[in-house]
């Protein structure tokens, strides 16, 4: 079931991984009453930081004032705790599957620097898009589809449809 790589590291079977992820989502709804999310934790951390440094800006901003300022507590949020758990779980998985090392994974044809710059650019675009769409792959698509929300399906089609096109355009970075 495990795919063994040259360096001795292993990966979980993707289908089995998907079943585990689905179970996690189910448990998340059962235990916390909320779905999974990732960008929300980042958004709340950013809002809390901006509120700490420039509370006036938060009060004036229509966007930030939704999450921070006044008596709102952006860091006291289920997603913030969930993401800490994700980090801890990913660390454990890295230990178990022998992949715990500091490295930049990239195609041998490109440099680490190029890979990191593209990752940063992609992350910026995705983070911006996730806020326009009111959620990312986990928050809008995965959790949304699990409760049969139409928005979830549209988000999923939009994310993976765009990714298909982007992957073809940027394929030289990988193959």
């Amino acid at each position: 079931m495990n795919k063994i790589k040259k360096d001795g590291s292993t990966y979980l079977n993707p289908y089995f991984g998907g079943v585990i992820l689905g179970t996690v989502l189910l448990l998340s709804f059962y235990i916390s009453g909320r779905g999974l999310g990732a960008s929300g934790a980042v958004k709340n951390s950013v809002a809390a930081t901006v509120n700490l440094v420039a509370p006036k800006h938060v009060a004036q901003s229509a966007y930030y004032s939704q999450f921070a300022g006044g008596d709102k507590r952006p860091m006291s949020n289920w997603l913030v705790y969930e993401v800490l758990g994700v980090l801890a779980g990913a660390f454990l998985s890295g230990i178990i599957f022998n992949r715990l090392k500091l490295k930049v994974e990239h195609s041998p044809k490109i440099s680490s620097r190029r890979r990191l710059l593209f990752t940063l650019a992609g992350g910026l675009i995705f983070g911006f898009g996730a806020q326009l769409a009111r959620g990312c792959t986990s928050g809008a698509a995965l959790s949304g589809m699990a409760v049969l929300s139409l928005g979830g399906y549209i988000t999923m089609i939009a994310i993976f449809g765009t990714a298909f096109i982007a992957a073809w355009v940027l394929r030289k970075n990988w193959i």
Partner: protein
Amino acid sequence: MKEELFVSGRNIPNIDPYLNIWHWQIPSYLFLGGLAAGILFFAGIFTILGKDHKMTASVKIAPMIVPFVLILGLLFLFLDLKHKLYFWQLYTTIRLESPMGWGSWVLMIMTPISIIWAASYVREIFPNWDWKFQFLKSFEAWVIKHRLLIAWPMTIYAVILGIYTGILLSAFNARPLWNTSILGPLFLVSGMSTGAAVIMLFSTDHREKKIMGRIDILLIIIELFFIVHLFMGFLAGSEAQINAANLFLRGNFTAPFFAFVVILGLIFPLLLESMELKGFKIPIVIPAVLILVGGLIFRFLIVEAGQITRYLY
């Protein structure tokens, strides 16, 4: 016209309706005091057991930071005082029932011992060090010769210091969350666990790391046991104590307490250290830092929540 004059003894700022007098200084000190007690306990006990040459980081390296840790902690205690210039009155007012008096004297004994202990190993850790004066050199020679004589009181006082960090809180009879005798042993074990974490960070010897890892696993299990019993005791207690426990079981402190202290600060490092013993390769810095951060947050939460809990109303 009838006028009514209403006199109340309840309007006491910063004390009623809830205590608001202890800020970051006290939990930071409790953390540093526990950490110092933990390191010195291991340094003393391994010397008494005659393992001082095998447990280099515990006996020689980690105690180097203890004087600085203790002095920083004392500075925090000093900053907390309202009338700072009268701090010396803690030493002229002998009251056996005063926990602060006890703490002052324990620190008065512990700080010089920690300085002497660290100083006696300075030349071993930094070979180029020179004590300059003859009387320092002869004093060093005397200390090196009589280390065992210092190790005994150091170990005993380390335990007292570790327990004292909890007793300081549990002596507050008016605060139901603190008023439990289990806080003493709980803070002692937690302090020893943070001490073991620092020793693991300093250690370069694989064997020593493994021994400290095993001890730490045991300490974390005991600490979890104490935490369970802390809340069991509260829930079997008066209404005020049940309310105090509920701050942590279904209140404002639940999420940070269980996430940062119980899961990330105890269970997760316990899992990582157990996995390391099983042969998985884990950078020791991760569980060690988690234990330290968890211990610090634990003290902040207990001090903060304890001030909110009360018997009145």
